[in-house]
């Protein structure tokens, strides 16, 4: 569970990164966090990782009040989370197996358990044949699968995915989100930060739009479940790319949501209002 109560973050430079943000993500939820660059998404991630502290307000993650969390307790808190980063952050000198097993080593898990659990999560992300490969020998999509397996191996309550599809081919992005959705179906809370609006539109679910350090939109929308035909996918991607530059989101009902929370668009191809 993630809860932000009237949270503000002001950096020493005087920049207000988050302004009185309140938010609650319940156990088992899947939430997309969207917003343009500089909107405050990264600050929110840093807060949730306890990399920085809130200037005011209360941040609670998995039952830990992060404002009151002592430095010594940070490792214990982070073990309840799983992280997936845009740049994968795999240890280059370790194999796929070692990168994943490392998380269990950190918590001093029995060797027997590690030998059983790691191959299991590797097979979950479909990388059984790459067990002994090094990160350099993997494609972007495969690296992100390893990162997801690493986030998953510890059976965390919450997985925070920061632009997990940002460094991989667009068609693989769907697979990655599908994978995260599958993990969410097993009960793990997922918080995914993304720029890729077509993904959001496709999968739907809870969408939180941060703009100018404030939450301007927080609603559940239904996604387009069926796989889009090739040409529609290309169009959606083009729109998403254009939208990414403006901070707009094309919602599944074809309305265009602007960064300030307003709706400026009209139906596309005769789509109906929901």
């Amino acid at each position, binding site marked *: 569970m993630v809860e932000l109560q009237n949270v503000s973050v002001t950096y020493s430079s005087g920049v207000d990164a988050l302004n009185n943000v309140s938010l609650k993500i319940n156990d088992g939820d899947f939430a997309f966090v969207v917003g343009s660059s500089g909107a405050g998404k990264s600050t929110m991630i840093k807060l949730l990782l306890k990399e920085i502290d809130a200037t005011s307000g209360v941040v609670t993650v998995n039952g830990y009040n992060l404002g009151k969390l002592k430095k010594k307790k940070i490792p214990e808190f982070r073990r309840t989370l799983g992280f997936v980063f845009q740049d994968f952050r*795999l240890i280059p*000198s370790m194999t796929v197996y070692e990168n994943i097993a490392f998380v269990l080593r950190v*918590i001093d898990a029995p060797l027997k358990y590690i030998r059983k659990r790691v191959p299991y999560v590797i097979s979950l992300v479909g990388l059984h044949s790459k067990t002994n490969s090094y990160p350099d020998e993997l494609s972007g999509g495969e690296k992100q699968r390893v990162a997801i397996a*690493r986030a998953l191996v510890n059976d965390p309550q919450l997985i925070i995915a920061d632009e997990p599809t940002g460094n991989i081919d667009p068609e693989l992005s769907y697979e990655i989100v599908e994978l995260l959705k599958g993990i969410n179906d097993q009960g793990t809370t997922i918080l995914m930060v993304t720029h890729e609006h077509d993904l959001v539109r496709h999968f739907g679910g809870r969408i939180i739009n941060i703009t100018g350090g404030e939450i301007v939109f927080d609603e559940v929308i239904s996604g387009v479940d069926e796989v889009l035909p090739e040409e529609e996918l290309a169009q959606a991607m083009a729109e998403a790319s254009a939208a990414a530059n403006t901070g707009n989101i094309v919602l599944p009902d074809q309305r265009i949501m602007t960064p300030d929370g307003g709706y400026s668009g009209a139906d596309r191809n005769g789509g109906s209002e929901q």
Partner: protein
Amino acid sequence: MKISGFKYLANQGIENIWKNKMMAFATFCVLLISLLLVGGAALFYFNMNSMILGLGNQNEIAVYLDPSTGTARVQEIQAQLETMDNIDSVEYISKEEAYNRMKNQIQQGEAIFDYIDSYEFMPDGFKVTVVSNDRIEDTTAQIGGIEEVQSASSSPQVAEFLRELRRVVSIIAIAVIVALSVVSMIMISNTTKASVFARREEIQIMKYVGATNSFIRTPFFVEGMVTGFFAGAGAFFITWAVYRAIFRILMEQGTLMRAFGVGSIIPFDKIQLWVALAYLVIGSLVGALGSVVSTRRHIDV
């Protein structure tokens, strides 16, 4: 932490040496050079000290007894001298020997001795060497205090000169050793910092997955310690070879070099255990601590 956990981390440390072999080699070289610089300076200092002490030991006290002292009393005085503080050796010089020595010294005036048919006028005496040249004046005075001792003389100027020489050499040597140690620490610190900096991302990943500081530091500690140990071993073998070669060359020199106290250079066999221990312990410690301290900047994530 369980034993298996420590074993894993120790193995990680050793594996890291191989995985980051270029940086490990750079650290090894810097540690090796640093140990050789400081070790060489220290050995040079110890030998200078030993040489000066050796020269000091050549400084002796000439003791002359009253010529009327009887043989039994001479023996008593010798025994008394031998038990005195700061006495290294006592050599008895009989009247006859003293007479012959004098005869040899005044070779051109040998004719004088034709008129002296007895050596009875010569005093019995002792050649006394001391343990500490620094206290030679006190010892001389103490010997002079014995009733039958007609004169006890030494050369306090030599003692004073050697004392001063030792003081100056000590100050210079310690300054050089301290300076070299500081330079070495800076070199080692920069190298380990570079080595750790290259792996800062790895450290950050470890922090994100909930690794404690000790979990992150242990492999770095082991890695630094093993690298330092090998650097210490390398420094020992280089020192062993160079020291023995220099020792042999100096010992082959004639008496001229011995006059400068070269005879007092410490043979390597006598100090090899201490040199090895110092190199290995200091190498391992500096390597381990340098490595761990360098992680501090990146560990606070």
